């Protein structure tokens, strides 16, 4: 089997997975929008949510870094690949830490949990589902970066990295939608 066929296979498979994930997210987003403003008790999104603009910019930037890494690996520069992907990893980790801080504030300061009201249920489910996907991506980035640092990544692996980058772009794109729905429209 030629490499090009293998590369195509990985991309098509990943696009299929992305389509399935997009359908799952769509259902959660529809639920969020449908239940917006239908909570019987507070707190409401207006009271407690603050748009995490810096984290959002960081996550968007990570799409650029992940892509730069793949390009460097294609070009045979494994060290530059490792640098770009560690940067991506850091941006992803910072995003997760930001989510953790926000959730801690919501739970312990504002008294909003998943059980409090419909807003809590839909907010933690949707943002949590996205954070879960970021976590999976961060775990993959961590493994790849470790392998790169150990010198086990070769330019021949560029297509694996490319397939992963599709996933990471998707996670970013979903965040744009979640951000708009939760922090702009839903507030």
């Amino acid at each position, binding site marked *: 089997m030629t490499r090009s066929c293998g590369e195509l296979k990985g991309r098509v498979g990943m696009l*299929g997975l992305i389509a399935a994930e997009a359908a799952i*997210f769509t259902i959660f987003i529809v639920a969020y929008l449908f239940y917006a403003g239908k909570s019987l008790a507070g707190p409401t999104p207006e009271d407690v949510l603050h748009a995490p603009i810096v984290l959002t910019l960081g996550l968007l930037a990570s799409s650029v870094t992940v892509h730069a890494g793949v390009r460097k690996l294609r070009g045979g520069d494994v060290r530059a690949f490792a640098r770009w992907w560690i940067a991506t990893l850091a941006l992803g980790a910072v995003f997760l830490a930001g989510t953790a801080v926000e959730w801690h504030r919501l739970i312990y300061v504002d008294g909003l949990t998943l059980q409090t009201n419909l807003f809590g249920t839909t907010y933690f489910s949707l943002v949590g*589902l996205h954070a879960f996907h970021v976590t999976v991506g961060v775990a993959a980035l961590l493994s790849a970066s470790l392998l790169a640092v150990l010198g086990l990544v070769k330019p021949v692996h560029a297509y694996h990295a490319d397939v992963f980058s599709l996933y990471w772009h998707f996670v970013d794109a979903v965040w744009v939608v979640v951000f708009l729905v939760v922090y702009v429209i839903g507030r």
Partner: protein
Amino acid sequence: MSTESLALPRPAVATPFVDRLHAWVTTVDHKRLGLMYIGYALCFLVLGGLEATAMRIQLIAPRYTFVSPQVFNRLFTMHGTTMIFFVAMPLMFGFANYLMPLMIGARDMAFPRLNAFSFWLTAFGGLLLYFSLIGANGLAGVGNAPDVGWFAYAPLTSRTFSPGHSTDYWTLSLLVSGFGSIGTAINIITTIVCMRCPGMTPGRMPLLVWLNLVMASLVILAVSPLSAAQLMLLVDRYLGGHFFDTQAGGSAVVWMHFFWIFGHPEVYVLVLPAFAFVSEIIPVFSRKPIFGYAVMVGATVGIGFIGMSVWAHHMFTVGMSANANTFFVFATMAIAVPTGIKIFNWLATMWGGKIDLRAPMLFCVAFLFQFLVAGLTGVMLSAAPLDWQLGNSYFVVAHFHYVIVGGILFAVFAAFYYWFPKVTGRRYREGLARLHFWLFAIGFHLTFDFMHVPGLLGMPRRIYTYEPGRGWDVWNLIVTIGVFFQIAGTLAFVLNLVLSALFGEEAGADPWDAWTLEWTVSSPPPAYNFAELPTVRSRRPLWDVKHPDDPDWKYE
């Protein structure tokens, strides 16, 4: 990749049983996984069939006490869930797995290990569902099966109305098998896109491959929402969420929407592979190429598109707005157009052909007739005003069993007989197959033709018994009698499979004088499928080989 071959001559010393079992359990070969899907589905078919039989015995006469009301609720829940998720879908995935790589000239699926992973997810999902029988209240307590119906409407599934863990087993089993289905769907699509042999352009793919492509796309678009809804139900039940909790402002109707966004496309997920079998079998047994290939592909894609936008016709009785009702009435009726095109194309394929009415074709002809009737009652039910009268009655039960049994199951039986020689290398017994056909056809019509009548007379579905004197008695008696014919037919089918696989005469590579690539390899096919990847120049590559003087590629 498995190195064992189904076709290799048996070594002088038989392989120990444990080694053979190990080879099957660890296999990533698409043919073995396909057979495992099918074998697994047949086991669950027996379970689901026994559940149906118990329900029909309970309903044979008014105020009969064969099972308790509680058990009856569990029976219809388990019957529906089993038949859809652990019989019909694995059957379709099994056939797709086995046939598709052979038909497009590939050596395996695109992701063999994902394939095995998906199978085992489905398999363990089914076990999880049935484990509820002993585990639902904790192993020490009395277990029970889920009893919320196969579409598990809220708020029945809330902790208040469904204590214990039976609903959790239901949810988790569908979630796990759903991930397996999505994995298989991704695999099917990738295989079709990336693994076709030289010359196998999209316009030359067998219709079975086209229909499975649309089927897999529907699985991705439909099963994912179901998985999302199951996740929400788990959040509600385990973390105290309020998605479907009407006391906290949640909506039971939202669950209905989410379920049927899955539930209706699911019908097309199951019926498209059935169409696929019929589209392969009718041409071979009419000795003519399929009529209107391009239109068939277009109609399939059309069914896929429209099928995604008709779900709320399951909810006319809920009370939607007039606009919503109107939209879903017309969307639903529109689907009769591409489906009708298909039926006419199959008829046109048969028209003027040299029809050979052996078992596969016999089942296909019955399929055509029965699927048409199922479609006609479907058009009746798609009219919202009539649905308000007939919704949730036995008329609906009769309608969808006409689709699933009369349409899909008959096509599956046709596929079993058609590809049996390829899979086992042996011929099935034609006489026993005809016995199976007639017993099953008589049983099917006794059960499901007459089931429409008590529905029209007002008998609701899912009732465990009924009062005498409502005019339902004799119809229910006939319906139950039909079940025993179906059981007898199924026994003939299983007997045929077993006897023929063990003692049938050698079939050879191409017993039907067929035209697609799977018939070019030995029966059963070697593990690597093709020693040399074939090159095709038309839709009927084997015809071209057999008729070098008059090949198809001159005309396509």
